[in-house]
């Protein structure tokens, strides 16, 4: 009898201490630019890696969209996030002291492809194609850097017109893979797509180049990055931010990196994203 009481107390104590430990859980989120399937499974492995490296319990929560990721970051539901260029800038505006700590190797010189359906008879060229007037055009998701912000910026810069003025119709496909599918089918004449998604799908043989092709490539810009909240050192111990940065930069396992998908992570800082902030401001996406 007495033993079972002790047992019950022990169980309660374990449960209680577990719940305390979970209050100290370090949570992150990530939306990869390509392949959003089985996020939990893939990023669960990243969480395991970080748990091992940081010595705290690390959890991953999946989100669906950039605004959702920003909200989770602002509300402290996540303390670390893999943001796109624009969403990272927006998030850091909202959370004082937050910092970009690492970016993908590829994100130092990211670019967007403008793709066209074959029926438009547009051919690939170096300078910005002029004969876009009156065509239909689809961006990716509204808050995407590569699918919206940068292509819109270059369209405005090269034509002096907003997309709505230049094109007969402007849509938002919501996703890079879908942009490709929509332009390939001819539902839209033109589209803007993240170069890495295009290259991956091309490599997998998913794209019929007799129907859709790249006609122009934007200049390079910085994109995805890891952003961390400013208060993590106070909450998880001195030097925690540096430890997280180090763990990310030292992530060498190709299986883990493939989830993002990036070759490796390199150091980054808030100032790297000043061009994105300025661009966002100039086209009115940031106040």
């Amino acid at each position, binding site marked *: 009898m007495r033993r079972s009481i002790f047992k019950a107390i022990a169980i309660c104590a374990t449960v209680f201490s577990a719940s305390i430990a979970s209050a100290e859980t370090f949570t992150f989120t990530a939306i990869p630019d390509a392949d959003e399937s089985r996020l939990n499974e893939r990023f669960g492995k990243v969480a395991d890696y970080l748990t091992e490296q940081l010595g705290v319990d690390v959890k991953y929560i999946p989100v669906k969209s950039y605004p959702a990721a*920003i909200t989770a970051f602002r509300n402290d539901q996540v303390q670390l996030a893999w943001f796109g260029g624009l969403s990272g800038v927006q998030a850091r505006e909202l959370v004082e002291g937050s910092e970009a700590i690492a970016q993908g190797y590829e994100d130092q010189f990211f670019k967007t492809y403008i793709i066209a359906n074959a029926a438009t008879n547009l051919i690939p060229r170096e300078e910005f194609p002029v004969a876009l007037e009156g065509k239909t055009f689809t961006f990716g998701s509204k808050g995407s850097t590569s699918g919206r912000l940068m292509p819109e910026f270059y369209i405005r810069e090269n034509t002096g017109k907003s997309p709505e003025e230049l094109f007969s119709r402007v849509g938002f496909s919501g996703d890079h893979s879908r942009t490709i599918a929509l332009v390939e089918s001819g539902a839209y004449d033109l589209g803007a797509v993240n170069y890495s998604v295009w290259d991956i799908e091309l490599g997998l043989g998913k794209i019929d180049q007799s129907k859709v092709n790249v006609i122009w490539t934007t200049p390079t810009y910085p994109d995805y990055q890891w952003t961390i909240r400013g208060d993590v050192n106070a909450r998880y111990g001195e030097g925690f931010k540096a430890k997280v940065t180090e763990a990310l930069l030292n992530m060498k396992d190709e299986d883990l990196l493939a989830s993002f998908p990036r070759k490796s992570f390199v150091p980054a800082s808030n100032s790297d994203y000043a061009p994105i902030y300025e661009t966002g401001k100039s086209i009115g996406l940031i106040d």
Partner: protein
Amino acid sequence: MPQTFSSSVLIKGISTGARLRRLSLFFSLIAIAFLFVADIHLYTPDPWQELSRIGLGLVTPYWPNASELGVSLLYTVSFALLAVSGAAIIGMLLAMWYHWRVVRVLAAAVRSVHEIFWGLMFMQIFGLSATTGLLAILIPFTGIFAKVFSEIFEQQPVTATSTFGKASRLSRFVYGWIPQAWPALASYTRYRFECALRSSAILGFIGLPTLGFHLETAFKQGDYSEAAAVLWLFLLLIASVRFWLKLRLLPVYLLLAVLALPEMPPVNASFIWQFFSQDIWPTALQDGDFNGTWEWVSRVGVNEVWPALWQTIAITQAALVLSGVLALMLYPLASRALVGRWSVLGRFKLLVLRSVPELMLAYVFMLLFGPSALPAILALALHNGGLIAFLLANSSEDANKRIGEGVPKGMMRFAYIDLPQRYPAFLAFLFYRWEVILRESAMMGVVGIATLGFYVDSAFEEIRFDKAFFLIVVAALLNICVDGLSRWLRARSGLKAPTL
């Protein structure tokens, strides 16, 4: 159990045939006029490769990780069950005092905002949590329950309560109206549960862990076999509701639903305060700068609200009439009384139409016809037409149970008996869906149509909650107007007290 909430309505109103004809004609003409205003354009894409991928996916459903799908199925059902139970109870209380204008306005206001937008707002406060999911369904559904329950009460004969003398309003309801109207109330709640399952699934589109989460991801990325697996599971869920949702098992289900909810992170009161005191108000207004505020309002008004208003109304009116036409064409095929055993096929078709999210229908139509208002109108019409046809088929079967031998069958019965009898209820259902179609037109940004909802969505994407809130209020006011107009038209045309 006495069937459906609609049967009692049907016999009335036939004498008002001429008025109904005029009303139908009037709405059809408006819809045709709006077709010219609406942003319709026909492109000729080459969709067959993508469509064949979709088709192949539909017949080869596949999901690699059954437990993942199982968990989101559990969340979908739990959210729906708990939210509907809560909404039915609060809605019932509001229905008792529905003669108060403040209650009516409150109910109209909360149901005029789409679940997705409630979800997006609560997400700012409660994050991606069970609270967000529950409230996003519970709040608009409460408004709907309040309205419909009050109409069910209105429709009851006064006999039971006239003997109550000076009893309080509460006891008159508890001992009189509610028991008397119980079959209609229960039947309507059951129907709402199906709607809640759909809403719960759709909330996955904005990131809650329900079936829609996986459905949207898979569909978006072109993993059509995986999308089909989720879709089939969802259809199965909707189709099986009538077999497992029993009143006496409800307490057990509710308990299980509470246990199944995902963990709720602690709510930080400062976020709630910040959201209501700062986020949703334009900066100029917070600074007390009224000129600046007016400038802001007129800029949003001219650039976004005004053009969007027209697109929204045009799509809604066209989709409304087309929904009606489709419903009249489809319902006889699903009524056992009219087509016999073949009704199983028709029922299945309606199940598919009303369960597949409009967004997906719009995508398929966009592949076929290119981006314009057309795919949006077709998607809304198919979805809502399917739903109205389902309700009509139910009432047709129900009414025909009472018809004796010797009446004509098949086409003859449809054209000369069933259709004329159904018509008043049909118009009533259609008017009820009016405000729903208006809300749903919000979801059509993907086809390049800038409706009000398109701008609301953009404002959330741009983290401009002040603009989102303003646009939601405008959309809500439009919704309240449409709701009032439909109430007035129904009353005027003698479409009295249909209960849906």
